[in-house]
């Protein structure tokens, strides 16, 4: 008898709570997934496909769903992995592929035949040209995704690393060079 009462009380509790939760789940329904936009903002937007997804937004969506790891993006580098880890509270893992320095593509104008295949391949429309006209890459818009290299039938596109110039030079982290002491010099300088 007692046990039936116990079961009845628990069942009553369960029903009440279940009903409350059901009501709440309808009232507090969440549409869409703003997290995807936050992840997309961290990704470097090179649209290169090295992560295996056709662009940065699909990769962001996959990360938001939790389907993939956060270390698949080489252009984002370890810093991108770190920022994704901070945002999502996930573990920082080393990059899947090796991290390459920033590069831009350059067309060798002597070899270009004007076939427009690279223009169609560029995901950010950074190549200017038309059929049978010279093609050229706008260096400022090139993201270094390397998607234009395979389609070129005469292999006239090469990647060049962006070097340091006076405009993008950065101060280095202050380090103290530890030098071996010169035995010949006195350790304490006397006042001149």
């Amino acid at each position, binding site marked *: 008898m007692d046990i039936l009462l116990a079961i009845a009380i628990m069942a009553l509790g369960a029903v009440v709570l279940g009903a409350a939760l059901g009501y709440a789940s309808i009232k507090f329904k*969440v549409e869409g997934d703003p997290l995807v936009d936050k992840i997309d903002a961290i990704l470097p937007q090179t649209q290169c496909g090295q992560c295996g997804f056709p662009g940065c937004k699909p990769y962001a969506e996959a990360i938001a769903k939790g389907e993939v790891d956060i270390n698949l993006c080489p252009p984002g580098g370890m810093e991108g992995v770190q920022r994704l880890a901070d945002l999502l509270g996930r573990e920082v893992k080393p990059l899947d592929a090796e991290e390459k320095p920033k590069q831009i593509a350059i067309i060798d104008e002597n070899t270009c035949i004007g076939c427009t295949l690279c223009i169609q391949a560029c995901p950010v429309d950074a190549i200017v040209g038309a059929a049978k006209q010279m093609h050229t890459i706008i260096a400022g818009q090139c993201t270094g995704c390397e998607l234009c290299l395979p389609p070129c039938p005469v292999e006239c596109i090469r990647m060049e690393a962006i070097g340091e110039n006076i405009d993008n030079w950065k101060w280095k982290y202050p380090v103290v060079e530890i030098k071996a002491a010169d035995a010949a010099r006195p350790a304490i300088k006397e006042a001149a």
Partner: protein
Amino acid sequence: MSHYLFILVGAVLVNNVVLVKILGLCPFMGVSKKLETAYGMGAATTFVLTLATGASYIIDHFLLLPFGLEYLRTLSFIVTIAAIVQLTEMVIAKTSPTLQQTLGIYLPLITTNCAVLGVPLINIANGNGFVESLLFGAGSAVGFSLVLILFAGIRERIEGADVPVHFRGAAIAMVTAGLMALAFMGFAGLDKYQ
């Protein structure tokens, strides 16, 4: 009046649920890396703990005791807490998806937070009335949030510090928590005013 005040102060400082009673260490360690998440977690736990204390008292007083079903306490409390946490999750998902993502797994883990179960049980053990239970629950939650925020602040500063390699991460966090517990032992002297 002073009786209620002592319960409150006692719950926040003297018998701090994390540093003196050593309950609820899981979110304390897991969510305290950033100050923003600590605020969020503190708020969520306060919400859950206060509601849970009130609901547990009502269930115990009106459903369990009259029918002599004391042995169902743990079970019914856990079910109530689980429902309340579920509700909290939905509210947070609606109001702040970032917080939900940053709290991550620790949001549903409030269900298994031993502080959230422990406080109602302590209430029953102490024989507190409804108002006293609520005060004790709210005070414990405030104490939890306070310590969580303090700890998060310290951990954020430690991030920039020169910690020896083998101490980085969880180790230095544990050392810090231990030192904080030592500090909170100083509040034990307040007990004699009760």
